[in-house]
C-alpha cells in the first residue's frame, strides 16, 4: 500500500509532530514558560512555517536518544530534529533520510581544569562520562583503541545526568559533540573550572531526519533548511524581508515569491520561503539567537559560517 503522504496528513492535522531532545540548551530546551527554543527547534518551526504557514503549529515531542529512531519509524513524529549525527548506517539500515545539516559538529572532550590535562592523548586510564545510545559512544571506543589507551565508560541516559555525573566527579572527562559541550558547560555550577580540549575526534554533521519513502516531505524539510541558509546569504532577515521584498534583486524576488510551478510541485504555498524567514529568521539569526553570540552558550560560528565566509554552510541555489 502507499504509505500515507506526510504533507497531507500534516495539513489535515493542522500541526507538525517534531521530535526534539528532552533538554539541551541551545538546541532544544523548554524555557520556564514551557516554550521550546533552540537551533533544532527552529528547523521544526521553519518546516511548519513553510508547510502550514505558521511556525507555531508544531507539537514538540521530547525524546531520549534511545527512543528517537523508533519514534520516527513508527510515525509518531513527522520529523526528527534532535542533534542527530548523519552516518551511513543510519541512512541505510534504519530507514531514515537525513535532510541536510544544520550544525557541523565534532566530538570533543571537556575536563576539569584542575586535572592539568592539555590534550586528549593524555587521557589514558580516565573515566569518561557519555550519553548512552549515541555515536559518541562508538567514536570514543574507536579513539581510545586507536591510540592504545584504556578508559572506563560511565554511561548515562540523558545529557543532564551526564553533566551531573561529571560535576560529582564520577568521571575525569565528559565527551560529547562540541556544541553540546559548550551547552553543558554552562550548566556546571562553576563553568570556569572546566575546559574543552582542542581535539576533535570525529565528524558529526547534525541535521533533521525524516522517514524514507516520502520524497515530497523529504524535499520540503530539506528546502526549508536550505531556505534559511540561502536567506542569510542573501542578507534576508526577519526584520528586513518585508522591506527587501520590494527590491528589484531577481534572486530575492525568486526567494520571496517563487513564481511558476515550483512551489506547487513542492506542495507548498507561493510564499513559503518568505514565511520561513519572516517567522523564524535566517540561519545566522537562528544561530546567534540560540547558540551564538546572543546566547549564554556563546559558541563561535567557526565551520558553521557560510561558505562565503570560510565555513561549510552551503545551500544549493533556489532556482
Amino acid at each position, binding site marked *: 500500500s502507499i*504509505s*500515507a503522504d506526510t504533507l497531507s496528513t500534516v495539513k489535515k492535522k493542522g500541526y507538525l509532530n517534531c521530535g526534539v531532545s*528532552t*533538554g539541551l*540548551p541551545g538546541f532544544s530546551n*523548554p524555557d*520556564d*514558560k*514551557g516554550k521550546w527554543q533552540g537551533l533544532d527547534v527552529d528547523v521544526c518551526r521553519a518546516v511548519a512555517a513553510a508547510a502550514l504557514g505558521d511556525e507555531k503549529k508544531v*507539537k*514538540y*515531542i*521530547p*525524546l*531520549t536518544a534511545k*527512543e528517537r529512531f*523508533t*519514534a520516527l*519509524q*513508527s*510515525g*509518531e513524529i513527522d520529523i526528527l530534529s534532535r542533534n542527530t549525527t548523519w552516518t551511513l548506517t543510519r541512512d541505510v539500515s534504519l530507514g531514515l533520510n537525513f535532510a541536510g545539516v544544520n550544525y557541523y559538529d565534532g566530538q570533543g572532550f571537556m575536563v576539569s581544569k584542575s586535572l592539568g590535562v592539555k590534550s586528549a592523548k593524555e587521557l589514558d586510564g580516565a573515566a569518561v562520562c557519555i550519553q548512552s545510545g549515541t555515536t559518541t559512544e562508538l567514536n570514543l571506543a574507536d579513539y581510545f583503541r586507536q591510540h592504545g589507551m584504556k578508559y572506563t565508560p560511565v554511561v548515562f*541516559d540523558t545529557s*543532564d545526568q551526564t*553533566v*551531573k555525573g561529571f560535576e560529582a566527579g564520577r568521571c575525569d572527562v565528559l565527551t560529547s559533540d562540541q556544541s553540546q559541550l559548550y551547552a553543558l558547560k*554552562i*550548566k*556546571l*555550577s562553576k563553568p570556569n573550572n572546566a575546559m574543552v580540549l582542542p581535539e576533535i575526534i570525529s565528524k558529526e554533521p547534525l541535521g533533521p531526519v525524516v522517514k524514507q519513502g516520502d520524497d515530497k516531505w523529504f524535499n520540503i524539510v530539506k528546502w526549508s533548511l536550505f531556505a534559511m541558509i540561502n536567506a542569510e546569504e542573501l542578507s534576508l532577515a526577519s526584520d528586513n524581508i518585508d522591506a527587501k521584498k520590494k527590491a528589484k534583486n531577481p534572486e530575492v524576488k525568486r526567494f520571496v515569491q517563487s513564481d511558476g510551478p515550483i512551489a506547487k510541485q513542492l506542495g507548498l504555498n507561493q510564499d513559503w520561503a518568505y514565511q520561513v524567514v519572516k517567522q523564524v529568521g535566517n540561519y545566522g539569526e537562528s544561530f546567534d539567537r540560540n547558540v551564538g553570540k546572543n546566547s*549564554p552558550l556563546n559558541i563561535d560560528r567557526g565551520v558553521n559560517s557560510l561558505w562565503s565566509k570560510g565555513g561549510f554552510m552551503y545551500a544549493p541555489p533556489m532556482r
Partner: protein
Amino acid sequence: MIHNDNKLPDLPPPKNTTGIIGWAKENLFSSPLNSILTIIAGYLLYISLVPAIEWAFVKADWLGDSREACTSGGACWVFITARLNQFIYGFYPEELYWRVNIVFAMFSVLVAALVIERTPYKGWIASFALIVFPVIAFFLLYGGGFDLKIVETHKWGGLMLTLVLAVVGIVAALPFGILLALGRRSDMPVVKSFCVIFIEIWRGVPLITVLFMASVMLPLFIPEEVSFDKLLRALVGIVMFQSAYMAEVVRGGLQAIPKGQYEAAKALGLNYWKSMGLIILPQALKMMIPGIVNTFIALFKDTSLVLIIGLFDLLAIVQAGLSDPKWLGYSVEGYVFVAFVFWVFCFGMSQYSQALERKLDTGHKS
C-alpha cells in the same frame, strides 16, 4: 482462715512507675542492653536530625524569585516557591489554570466524601466518581467541547500529570481487573488459561519495559493511519500493567465471599452475571478497598517512571527545572520537595488503608 470484707481503696500507682520517669524506665532503660541501645540511637538521631532541621527550617530561605534571595546558607526553598506553578500544572497555559483547579477541587470533594464514613448515598457518589467525573475532568483538562480551548496533552505536566496518570490508571484498570479475576476463577479452561497467562506476563515484566514498549513499539503494532497521543499510549501501558495487579486484588476479594452467598443467589434464580453484579461484587469490592488503595499507592509512586519515556511528571519537571542555568546547584531542595510531595500522598493513603484493614478485621470477627 482469712476473711477481709472491707473494700480496699484504689491507690494511685507509685511515682517511679508512672509519669515520664516511669515511662522512660519501662520503655527506654528496662535493661542494660536496652539502655545502651537507647543511648546510641539517641546520639545518632541527635547528630543527624539537628543539622537537618537547621538546614531545612532554621537557616532556610522561602520567598523571592531568583537565587539571589538565598542568602542564609540553608535550604533555598525559593527555587520551589518560584516555580511552584510549573511543578503543579506543568506547561498548562497560565490563564487556564482555573480548569485544572476545578478538577482538583471536585476530585478532593469526591475523595473526601468517599473516605468519610458517614456520607450518605455512597454508592451513587462512587458511581458518579467512576463514570461521570472522568468525563467532566476530561473536558475540563483537555477541552474540546463547550467552547473550551483545547490544551494538548504534551502541555500537561507536574503534579497534575502524576495524578492523571495514577487516577486514570487505577480507575480504568478496575473493570479489566474484575473481568480478568472472574476469568481466572472461571471453569472454562480456555478463558482461565488466557487470563492466567495475561496476568502473569504483565506481572512478570518491569513497568519501564512496558512503558518503553507503549511509547515506541505500540505504533508498530497498529495500522499506519491510526496514531494516538503519547500520553494515551503511556496510559494504555499503565492500565494493562495495572489491571493484572488489580485482578489479583479482586481475586482476593472474591475468595473472601462465602460459598453460601453464591448458592443463595443461585437458589433465588439469579443468573451468573446478575448474581455477580448484585450480590458478589458489591460485597467483594468493599473488602477490596484496602488492596485497591495499596495498588494505587504503588502505581502513584511508579508514575515517576514516565520520565524515562519523556513525559514531564512531577519528578521530571523538577529535574528539568534543576537544569535551568539560573537555578543550578539546588538539586537537593528539588529532590526533597518531590520526595515530600510523594510521601505526603502515599503516607496519607497508606494510613487510610491500614485503618480500613483494621476495621474490616474487627468487623469480621464480631
